[in-house]
């Protein structure tokens, strides 16, 4: 979310599309109710189903699933055609005036540079024209045929209300009502908020679904203001935090990313990440990329990350493909190329697509380790449950370790909500039986693995032997030690200070 939950009360128009906040985020949806009751705000819901969000909406329009981009490009087209644009904002705060390179085109659903055999683009023409001063060339009148605004106008022109109806199944009059209501928020005195969730992300073009609404919000001047914004209603209590800390195949903490194979040195890696302002005097968080990266490497590898070894740059694994995401992981598993797999509080046998393929993959592992407070199907994928899980148990050779963990009420630390609030919480109860925290389990695994490498040597032990692990008790760092990257004195009961 660009804005906090509590800010929704400041809006004039809520658009719920790609989500169903009344049912999936009920206590957050309360702020929609506040805006309706206290400001006279309106609520629009666009969804294939008449959901409970729709049941309290001022206007509902149906849409066929997977066609949101056509609908929203139709709304952008409507706003441009009807002069419903916040012009001062669009001119000054978007790249509408920037000139795009000659050679960039769009035709028959494809942009310049498509290579069908690779299912990928050569994206080199998708860039601004850069002037002799090194900055992007702009035309503030928005008249130049190569400026972003001219290209955008041409790109969306095809998405007429008639075409929207044919693609989306949304009757033309309903589409036009929604478009008109949205377009009214182009007034500087009106704000609209977009609330979306998995209904936009879980598509083969999920990122573009969200982007299309972001573009609409930009030309209406609704980003950065109270009651506005692009508000992703995230699904799990700390999914935002795990994303921030970079627990993804290609990420480093703080939205930095891993090097690719070709990036053989730190300088080469930095050459594509160093901040180059595209307009005179522009500043950015990313002008600090080197500082963020070096400080992260010091937190990872302590004294072993030094200026003379490129801050232990070689300790980081390099990517030969863009991602080793969950789908690739299970593809590798099903092809017999994965031996060990860990699931920490995660039930992929239910959560990932094509369960038959998942079970086939899990059955080819040597070992599966599941850490969870609860029983999961994943930990029991080898159990025959008749029609519900038809497997041949004796033929499944996977060894499964199921480790009991604490739950939220039994541990301490911070969680990041959708609005980026980092809220600390404290343990209220004792864990059942011999359940332990995930941190304890990870520390135990690490300390034992490090010990094996100390004793036996082995493949490139350096990053494991040198992992910065300064905690007073190496076998159980405290939450405060972890968040502060420090060793702290312990009190009775293991708590810091």
């Amino acid at each position, binding site marked *: 979310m660009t804005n906090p939950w509590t800010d929704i009360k400041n809006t004039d128009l809520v658009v719920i599309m790609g989500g169903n906040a009344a049912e999936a985020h009920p206590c957050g949806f309360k702020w929609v109710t506040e805006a309706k009751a206290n400001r006279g705000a309106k609520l629009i819901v666009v969804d294939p189903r008449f959901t409970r969000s729709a049941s309290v909406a001022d206007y509902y329009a149906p849409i066929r699933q997977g066609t949101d981009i056509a609908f929203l490009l139709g709304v952008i087209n409507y706003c441009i055609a009807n002069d419903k644009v916040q012009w001062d904002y669009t001119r000054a705060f978007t790249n509408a005036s920037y000139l795009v390179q000659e050679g960039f085109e769009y035709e028959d659903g494809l942009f310049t540079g498509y290579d069908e055999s690779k299912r990928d683009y050569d994206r080199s023409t998708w860039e601004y024209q850069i002037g002799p001063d090194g900055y992007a060339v702009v035309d503030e009148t928005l008249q130049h045929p190569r400026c972003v605004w001219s290209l955008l106008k041409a790109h969306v022109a095809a998405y007429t209300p008639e075409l929207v109806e044919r693609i989306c199944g949304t009757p033309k009059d309903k589409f036009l009502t929604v478009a008109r209501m949205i377009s009214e928020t182009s007034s500087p005195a009106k704000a609209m908020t977009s609330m979306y969730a998995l209904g936009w992300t879980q598509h083969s073009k999920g990122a573009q679904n969200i982007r299309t609404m972001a573009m609409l919000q930009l030309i209406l001047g609704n980003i950065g203001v109270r009651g506005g914004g692009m508000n992703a209603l995230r699904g799990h209590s700390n999914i935002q935090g795990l994303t921030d800390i970079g627990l993804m195949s290609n990420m480093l903490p703080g939205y930095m990313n891993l090097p690719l194979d070709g990036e053989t040195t730190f300088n080469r890696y930095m050459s594509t990440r160093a901040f180059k302002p595209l307009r005179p005097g522009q500043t950015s968080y990313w002008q600090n990329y080197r500082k963020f990266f070096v400080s992260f490497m010091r937190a990872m590898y302590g004294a072993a990350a030094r200026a003379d070894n490129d801050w232990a740059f070689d300790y980081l694994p390099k990517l030969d493909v863009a991602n080793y995401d969950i789908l690739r992981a299970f593809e590798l598993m099903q092809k017999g190329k994965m031996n060990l797999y860990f699931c920490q509080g995660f039930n992929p046998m239910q959560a990932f697509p094509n369960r038959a393929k998942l079970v086939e993959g899990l059955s080819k592992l040597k070992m599966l380790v599941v850490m969870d407070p*609860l029983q999961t199907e994943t930990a029991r994928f080898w159990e025959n449950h008749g029609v519900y899980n038809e497997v041949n148990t004796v033929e499944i050779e996977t060894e499964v370790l199921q480790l009991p963990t604490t739950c939220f009420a039994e541990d301490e630390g911070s969680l990041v909500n959708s609005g980026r609030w980092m809220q600390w919480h404290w*343990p209220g109860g004792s864990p059942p039986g011999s359940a332990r925290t995930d941190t304890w389990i990870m520390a135990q695994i690490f300390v034992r693995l490090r010990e094996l490498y100390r004793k036996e040597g082995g493949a490139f032990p350096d990053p494991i032997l040198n992992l910065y692990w300064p905690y007073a008790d190496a076998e159980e760092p405290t939450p405060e030690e972890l968040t502060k990257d420090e060793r702290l004195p312990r009190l009775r009961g293991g708590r810091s200070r």
Partner: protein
Amino acid sequence: MTPISRRGFLAGSAAAAAATSLEAFGFSEAEAAVAAAVKPFHLTNTTETRNTCTYCSVACGIIVYAKGDRRKGEKADIVHIEGDADHPTNRGTLCPKGAALRDIVKSETRLTQPMVRRPGSDRFEPISWDSALDKIARALKDDRDANFIEKNEAGITVNRWLTTGFLAASATTNETAYATYKVVRSTGILAFDNQARV
């Protein structure tokens, strides 16, 4: 109101003292009997701890009530969870999932001890923490040593490990996530992901 025989009802329970003192304040016998019949408030003598709902990312504030105090090193048994009225977002409200939080903490399908399912077996068997963790460390070491890729075909240092994967959680704390990140990344595992993608 149906009169209740006070004598028959109380039979020497701790509530008797309370009822007697109520009488001293001028309550009638019937009223005192009703007061005595009311169950003692179940949150009396509990510790209150601030926490956050474990489900969606609205992150409603909650208060956890337990018999016993962990801060004093006691075993704490959670008896009740409710919305935190001071919290700016939820202001004390909870949804049907949040309102039933105590029952997920107390679920009959909570895991309580490490278990192993051996190859081909049709059941889980208990295993000690030490044995389970040693087994895991050994399996990691052996697989990493056998399959770690120091250089790619072009001779470039890549230091990656592709035959082991790790799926991180989505409701653990930042601090757990960070400890997990450090441990997993330092081994060179690339198939590392979390619930953000699903």
